Every structure is written in C-alpha cells, then in structure tokens.
C-alpha cells in the first residue's frame, strides 16, 4: 500500500515535469518557427496553407452577414450622394470627351511609330476576379484573404483594386490566396513618378500612406504626381498606376493609394504572362543584395 502511494507520488511528479518540459518545447517550437519563416521554409509554408484551407470556408460563412450589411450601407450611401455624384460625373464626362479625341490621335500615331520600329507588343494580360473574405488578423499587418476557386493563381501575381495596384499575391492555398497590400510593411514595389520618370521604391509602412524611398534628393517630385510601376525587376509590368504623391516633407515622400479599398469587395488578380514570377522576384531581391 505504502509502495503504491510512493509510486503514485512519483508518477504525478513525473507528469508535472513532463508538462513543464512540454510547455518549454512549445516555446522553443514557436521561436524556431519565427526564425524559419524568415527563410521561407517548406514546412512553415505547408502549415500555413493547411490552416488557410481549413479556416477559409468558415471565414466565407462568417463574412456573409457583414457583406450584406456593407451592401445595404453602400446602397443608402450612394443614394444620398447621387445628386453630387451626377454633377461631378457630367463635368468629368466633358473632360473625358476631349481626352478621348486626343487618345484616338495618339493611338494612330503610336501604331504608325510601332510599325516603323518593328516593335513587338507584350502579351495580353488575363485576369480573374476574387472575392475578399477576410482582413488582417492583427494591426501590425495589412493583408486580405480572397477566394479564388479553381483559378491557377501564382505567388507574386499583381492585384488590382478598381484600376490601380493594391498589392500582390503572397500565398496560395487550394481555393484561397493571401494578398499583401501595398501599405503593408512587407511590400516593396519598384515605381516611377509618371511626370518626371524619377525612379524609386514604394515601401509599405503599415500606415495608410506608403513612402517613396531611394529617390534622388534633388529629384523633381511634386504633390499630386502620379506614381506608377516601373517594371524594374520584371515582377510587375511597367506603367500600372498605384497612387499620387500626397505630402513631401524633408526627405519623406508619402503616397496616397489610388484604389479606395473601402469600396473594394472584389479584387482582380492579373496574369501578365510574366513566367516564373516567383523566380523573377527572387532574382530581383538577390540582385538587390
């Protein structure tokens, strides 16, 4: 009886020690995961994808009521602004008609010059629409989770809001894709200021306004200048609009994104036929080092 009691005490001590050791192991595993995620480890990727696959359908069900609320709100918001919008659109339409004529002339001129130079146009882009089903899980990041169905979406592909760039595909798992927004700290896009062709890197900083880095201090950049993709590195095609220069204070240039993410329910994932986008991306970053 006494021996049995001693054994039971020893067993419970062993259990407590094992528990402590297990907790210690959990801490070590999480710490190692942080280190491994920096290396784009296969195991980490697989675990990430598995959780996305399992939780994606749940998220689709959960976001449905919020989507309806948002639609109702947007409907009434649009109705309340219909008069002002109509006036604005009429004025814009007049401007557009003038621009349309200019575009036609330039298009003809462009075709003629292209023929003279024997220019081969780039491949036509194909795109697919994807529904946003979730947003960032914490305030330190800016990402979206979208439902892509069976479409062959690849990591690194560009994501457009209305007509401008809002981010890129970061992870693809089954029917879901994770998109890193241009405002996210992980986002770095080679850009050019459209008016003066000044190059730079648009870097997300987890605020609503990403900053333009690596521009010359004497560069001619003004508030309101349009920022477009430069195509450097081959990751994104050139000339896609991203935003406007919002403020310039000292050496800091803040860019306001063109796409109004508050109105975006669906995004467009565009395939520009840039084969092996991931390899191109890796080459770009390696050459950057």
């Amino acid at each position, binding site marked *: 009886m006494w021996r049995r009691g001693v054994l039971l005490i020893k067993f419970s001590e062993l259990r407590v020690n094992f528990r402590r050791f*297990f*907790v210690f192991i*959990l*801490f070590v*595993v*999480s*710490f*190692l*995961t*942080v*280190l*491994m*995620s*920096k290396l784009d480890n296969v195991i*980490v990727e697989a*675990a*990430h994808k598995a*959780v*996305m696959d399992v*939780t994606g359908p*749940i*998220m689709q069900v*959960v*976001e449905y009521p*919020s*989507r309806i609320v*948002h639609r109702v709100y947007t409907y009434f918001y649009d109705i309340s602004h219909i008069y002002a919008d109509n006036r604005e659109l009429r004025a814009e339409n007049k401007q557009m008609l003038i621009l349309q004529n200019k575009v036609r002339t330039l298009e003809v001129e462009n075709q003629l010059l292209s023929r003279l130079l024997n220019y081969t146009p780039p491949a036509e882009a194909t795109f697919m629409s994807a529904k*946003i*089903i*979730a*947003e*960032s*899980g*914490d*305030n*330190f*990041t*800016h*990402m*979206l*989770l979208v439902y892509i169905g069976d479409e062959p979406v690849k990591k690194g592909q560009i994501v457009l809001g209305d007509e401008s760039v809002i981010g890129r595909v*970061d992870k693809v798992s089954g029917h879901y894709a*994770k998109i*890193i*927004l241009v*405002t*996210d*700290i*992980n986002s770095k896009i080679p850009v050019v200021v459209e008016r003066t062709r000044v190059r730079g890197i648009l870097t997300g*900083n*987890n*605020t*609503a306004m990403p900053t333009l880095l690596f521009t010359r201090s004497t560069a001619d950049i003004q508030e309101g200048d349009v920022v477009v993709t430069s195509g450097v590195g081959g990751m994104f095609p050139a000339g896609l609009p991203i935003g406007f220069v919002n403020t310039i204070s000292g050496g800091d240039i803040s860019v306001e994104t063109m796409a109004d*993410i*508050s*109105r*975006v*329910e669906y995004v467009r994932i565009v395939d520009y036929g840039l084969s092996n986008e991931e390899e191109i991306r890796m080459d770009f970053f390696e050459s950057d080092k």
Partner: protein
Amino acid sequence: MRDSWQEKFRIFLLHRIPLVTTFILMFIFFTPVNSVQLNYFRPTVGVICVYYWALKRGYMFSYISAFCVGFLTDVYSSSPLGLNILFMMLLVFVTDWLGRYFQSASFGLGWFIFGLVGLGQILLKWLVLTIYFGHILSLSEVMLSYFSTLLFYPFIVSINVWVQNHLLPQERINE
C-alpha cells in the same frame, strides 16, 4: 468509479469550449471592414479571450490552446509565422502567474490589469517587429489598436462570461 468513454468525451468537449468560443469571436472580427483606416481600430480579440480564459479557467485554456490561437492569428496576418504563437503563450504564462492573486478580481480590476498586460504585450510586439523588419513601425497606429482593444474588452468579456455561466460547469472537472 471509472468514467465511461462517453463521459470522458463529454468532459473533453467541455474543455474545448473556451478555445472554440475564442475561434468564433476571432473569425467574426476577421471579417472585412473594407477600410484601411478602420483596420487600426480592429480590436485584437484573441488577446482578450486568451487573457480572460487563462485568468478565469486556466485549467481549460492550456498553452496548446494559446498555441492554436496564436497560429490562427499568424495565418491571418503577414507578420512572421510563430510570433503571435510566442506572444499568446507568453500572455498565458503571465496571466497564469497573475491568476494566483487576481483570479476572483472584480470586473474593473480585471479590466485594469488587462490594460497593463495588453500594453506590455503590444509594446513588446512592436519592439520585436521593429527589430525584425529593421524599420521603426508607427507607434500611433499600434496605440489606436490597443485603445480599441481596451474599449472592446467589456463587450468581448461579457460574451465569454455568458459562455462560462451557461455552457461550462461551475465546479472544476479535470480531464
């Protein structure tokens, strides 16, 4: 008397209720608000739930539960995988220690302690991420999120209190 397997299974499910409640609340708060600005006001529901359950029903909310909550948060963010796991487990560790003194604390005191623990957690996370990315992250946005989490605390806790009073047994049942 040995418990039947049905009884064991029932107890096992009862012990998972805090984790399932946390997951449901997290999913609700992951839904798109369609605004970058509003994203800063998104409360970190996972932190509130982990704190609450670790304080009130520590034996039902183990480190493995915190691990799962952290993992889900990591997947739904672009911060390095493992970081939120680490922070959630640290939160359980700290709350477990605090639970020895404040387990039966009043709501107001619990809220106040959460304010301190949450502040420490968010500042530490900000520091780690700043080092990780090699870029000083904006502290104002982080503080906005902290205050919104603090404001949402009573609402999230009231849901958890309801779950605790209506779905969980009042006395401790070990697995």
